[in-house]
């Protein structure tokens, strides 16, 4: 599978339930270690798989390696050892020039949402479509559909500072889903929100999973994890210490 062109196709293929072969995992880590320059090991020999259409939480103490794991999936960092596969593509074989293409297939949500504060809500959500070369007429439709999904259609002309923290986070989510990426990863998307808002936001991710996306959310909010009843991957000092299936979450 060529690294550059194959990802979208593989992801789409992997998600087809009617496929005669067993669905390949969308995320597969094989003995992955990450050592930052001059630092200790943030991840140690981490291996797990996340199937197509599956949703999971990554949790663990602060410094456990949750963000590092998500950064490897978006190619914001490279592993020191081991293989990270996304949609059957070994990210180690994706060269620098292939990174933009990969990122267009992975929707990313950040705790600090990383919105452009001097642009309108609409322009922020539109950005991934502009970057991907979607024609303007279709951009408008898709942006409004994404904003409607997160309940912010009425705010499209505002700039992010005019919105509440929860609304800003929802703009970030709209931006992550507007390109319809097969894989959605979120790093502490509810970190700044009150419990009520946090539940609403998580509800959005569950909805995306229900329509076929593969979702991985890093959080240390145990209350929320229990409530959502999804698979939970627990990290401790960069090692996988527990992997709880959705049915076993109590």
């Amino acid at each position, binding site marked *: 599978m060529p690294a550059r*062109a194959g990802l*979208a*196709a593989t992801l*789409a293929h992997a*998600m*087809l339930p009617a496929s005669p072969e067993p669905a390949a995992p969308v995320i597969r880590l094989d003995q992955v270690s990450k050592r930052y320059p001059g630092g200790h090991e943030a991840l140690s020999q981490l291996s797990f798989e996340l199937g197509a259409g599956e949703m999971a939480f990554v949790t663990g103490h602060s410094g456990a390696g949750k963000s590092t794991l998500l950064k490897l999936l*978006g190619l*914001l*960092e*490279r592993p020191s050892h081991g293989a990270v596969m996304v949609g059957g593509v070994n990210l180690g074989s994706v060269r620098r020039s292939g990174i*933009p*293409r*990969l*990122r*267009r*297939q992975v929707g*990313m949500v950040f705790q600090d949402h*990383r*919105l*452009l504060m001097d642009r309108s809500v609409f322009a922020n959500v539109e*950005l*991934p479509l*502009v*970057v*991907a*070369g*979607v*024609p*303007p007429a279709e951009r408008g439709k*898709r942006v409004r*559909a994404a904003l409607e*999904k997160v309940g912010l259609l009425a705010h499209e002309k505002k700039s992010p500072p005019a919105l509440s923290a929860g609304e800003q986070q929802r703009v970030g989510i709209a*931006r992550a889903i507007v*390109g*319809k*990426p*097969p894989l959605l990863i979120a790093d502490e998307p509810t970190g700044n929100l009150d419990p009520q808002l946090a539940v609403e936001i998580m509800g959005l991710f569950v909805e*995306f999973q229900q*329509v*076929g*996306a593969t979702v991985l959310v890093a959080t240390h909010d145990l209350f929320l994890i229990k409530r959502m009843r999804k698979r939970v991957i627990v990290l401790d000092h960069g090692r996988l210490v527990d992997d709880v299936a959705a049915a076993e979450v109590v």
Partner: protein
Amino acid sequence: MSRHRARRGDPLPAAAPSARGRIATWRGQHAWSLHASLQRLAAHPVGTALTLTVMGFALALPLAFYLALGNLQRFGAALGESQAISVFLKPGLGAAAVAGLASDLRARADVAVVATRTPQQGLAELSAMQGFGPGLAALADNPLPYVLVVTPRAGLDARAGQALVTALRALPAADRVQDNSAWRGRLDALLTLGRRVVLLLGALLALAALLVVGNSVRQDIQAHAEEIAVMQLVGASPGFVRRPYLYAGICYGFGSGVVAVALVLLLELALTGPVATLAAAWGGGLRFAGLAPALLLAVPFAAALLGWLGARIAGARHLTAVEPH
């Protein structure tokens, strides 16, 4: 909901299928980039105006020198035509011999006019000059020779002019030949030097303009580090990230080119009157000539190219610095 259900059959158009689709995509992205960069320039009107002015002056300076040089050349050529060669004849030559010599010279093809100045005329001219009067009155004899003032035919080139002077020097009756056109050779040498200086100055100031654009674009990039990072996170290619800055460079260049042309036109306007007065004083039919319209038209486009280059260099240096890895 249906939007998401359509996901499988509707991947991102990472590779647009048709050529027309690709062109539409390309055009859409460029329009977005141009709009983004214009918005940025408009967001900092003072900084943008300052950059345009500094660059405009840098580009106007060599143009102004070029303008001055061109006019000096024309002026020199026109003056050269009115210059004559003075032939001081040997003392003791009679009026008849002088008249014969004058008519011989008039017959030459490269001679337009020959005027004769008698010793009496010369003495009268000298006496009219302050300070000479009393001394000259003390002279018993008029020591001045006859002088033939030879005007070369109009349009004579330098070599033919030199040949005429040589021929006059060879005349047995000639005592001394004063070639008033010698200064023309000096002017020509000076103009050649001037052209070199203009070229050098143009190159140096173009380099300065390049640095000014590069610096403005560098500041642009640093001011938008956050935005650049976000664009990279959502999958923008390096070329796409760079494009608004290239457009900004092109806008800076073109704008400063327009400023430079405006400055030169102002200069021409200011100089036309005084130069006409000067030309009238020399009795020539000289007029001030502005720069060629084609040249003026080309300046903003050349400057735009310069701006693009400056932005490209700055982009290569500074855009990689804000990438996450």
